[in-house]
């Protein structure tokens, strides 16, 4: 399909620019469909190997199928995996019942922050897409984060054509978004075309399936009878349900996602 080829070509270009421009990049992998497709794009961009580490942020609240999928694929594809955890917060027993905002910030954002400090990464490749959430629709392909890890969304860099701003200066790191321009449907068509492995939780059982995977306490399935990739693709062509409708942290309050992301959430 020409459309998928165009999307893929652009993503590969962005990945190679990031690798050329930054000293120490890493790619984030949630084990979900988008970041798994992004790992595959890395293999394509760099001819069969991922030349930087793959980070999985482990909140300890992920579904057990996600851990199984993670360990299997890491072994099968053979990339370097770093599991990032905020051990301190985990010990303190941080959990979503005490507030989703704090929980996401501590177990995800701060775990990532620590991992970045320890390893000195200056670029993080993330598989967010514009069509997932209004706030992500505002992102640049290369998006700098300041010394406090914050996203200054009110003053984003000029990003024209394929000239991405890669200066770091006093910035902690730059977020790189190689599949920002893909739609959910594109990702699934790509998964089908490339025959990529995906977590079976995406497929319907007893009339329910997961559209988006996150932590077990905050992620809910949607009503669906799509049991195969073909059926998922067909469902997405007609659905009116938002992709992240089963993700609780987006909906706690108005602008929660903006506030989470301003602090450095993905």
């Amino acid at each position: 399909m020409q459309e998928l080829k165009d999307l893929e070509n652009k993503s590969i270009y962005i990945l190679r620019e990031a690798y050329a421009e930054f000293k120490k990049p890493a790619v984030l992998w949630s084990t979900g469909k988008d970041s798994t497709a992004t790992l595959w794009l890395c293999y394509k961009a760099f001819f069969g190997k991922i030349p930087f580490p793959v980070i999985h942020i482990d909140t300890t609240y992920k579904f057990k199928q996600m851990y199984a999928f993670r360990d299997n694929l890491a072994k099968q594809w053979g990339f370097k995996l770093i599991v990032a955890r905020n051990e301190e917060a985990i010990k303190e027993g941080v959990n979503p019942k005490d507030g989703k905002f704090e929980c996401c910030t501590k177990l995800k954002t701060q775990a990532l922050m620590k991992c970045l400090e320890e390893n000195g990464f200056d670029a993080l490749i993330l598989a967010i897409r514009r069509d997932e959430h209004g706030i992500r629709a505002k992102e640049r392909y290369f998006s700098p984060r300041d010394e406090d890890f914050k996203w200054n969304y009110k003053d984003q860099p000029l990003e024209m054509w394929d000239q991405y701003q890669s200066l770091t200066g006093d910035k902690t790191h730059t977020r790189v978004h190689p599949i920002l321009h893909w739609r959910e449907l594109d990702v699934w068509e790509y998964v089908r075309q490339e025959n990529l492995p995906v977590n079976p939780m995406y497929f319907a059982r007893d009339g329910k399936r997961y559209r988006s995977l996150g932590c077990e306490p905050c992620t809910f399935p949607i009503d669906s009878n799509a049991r195969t990739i073909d059926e998922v693709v067909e469902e997405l062509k007609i659905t009116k349900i938002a992709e992240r409708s089963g993700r609780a942290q987006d909906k706690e309050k108005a602008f929660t996602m903006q506030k989470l992301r301003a602090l450095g959430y993905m």
Partner: protein
Amino acid sequence: MSVNVVMIGHVDHGKSTLIGRLLYDSESITEGRVEEIQRLAEEYKRRFEFAYFLDSFDDELKEERTIDTTGVMFKGRNLYSIADVPGHKEFIKNMLTGASHADVAVLVVAAEEGIQEQTGRHAFLIHMLGIKHLFVVVNKMDTVDYKEDVFRNIKNKVAQLLASFGYHDVDFIPGSALEGDNIYKRSERMPWYHGSTLIQTLDGVKLSREVKPLRFVVQDIYAVDSDRVIAGRVESGALSKGDEVIFQPSEVKGKIERIKLFQGELEKAEVGDSIGIVASCEPKRGDVCGLLANPPLPTREFLGEAVLLGDSLRKGEEVELRCGTRRVKGEVKEIREKINSETGEVMARNPDHISEHEAATIIFATEPLVVEKFSDIPELGRFVLVRDGNIGAGVVLEAKV
């Protein structure tokens, strides 16, 4: 076909509302989103607006204006990626970010206000960026009782402005994004109008790719098994196995031995392809490759037209230039004409500096750099100015001076 559209125009003329209306009428809004926005509007004591489908920062809601560009996609006859851009002068940087990928621009002009400052500036910038397809929506026709003479009057004035930027025979659509007239659905309130709706106009756009000489930009060199693979993208033309090529400004010549992908090889690579080349020579990141028969030519001086978004740019000042994948030290050798980016008028000849939001024709002196005249090969005819970040952008008028 994928079509990138940018909505441009002055603040409050209804760009975000218009996109919200397109999404709403084409049933591209997800379930519950309308209710969510209604709740939000109540909480912030605002009237429900279609614009809130796009304006997702709390500040945008509070200030009732778009701050940053948003990209949304929806499927009509084509797959549209639509960029909403802010209509304030202070956010021109965000406007350019959104506009730089556009194939098509839709200029939104409010019927009760007509031409305002950013109407002119946005139109000028779109022209500078070389966006060929431009349409005008005369919006908010509901506020002028859908009167034909108001539409005609604005149409005449805007057509005149656009003609000064080289846009002739532009289609004008009278509409109301708020009421849904002539945007996605045909309006019965303006029986005097027999033209297309906005969506029909967009669906009718045909993008053509002209055949151009080969230009391949080098991003990196990777060691893959025993090969040195030149990674990069075909920006124009096509590249075939066996081609005799030259990489500039490194000035190395060679033959294309293989075109590599992660899995498999190609006989021929086309425009847009991100590929790897195995060749009988080794270029560097930043090089541009072309056929020996029609090679890229490095230059040390070129004439560009640029718009400045940083403080000021002085004659004699050093500035980094980026074109393709190359970054070089450059110098503002001569500012030929300072241009008012609102009207396109020449404000001064040979000034010693230009200020924020002003445009200029500038002769840049540079380390050897491959640039192409924008009208010949746009992919290598555009550049960005860097000084602690991207501060401006422009297009190449003459690759050699």
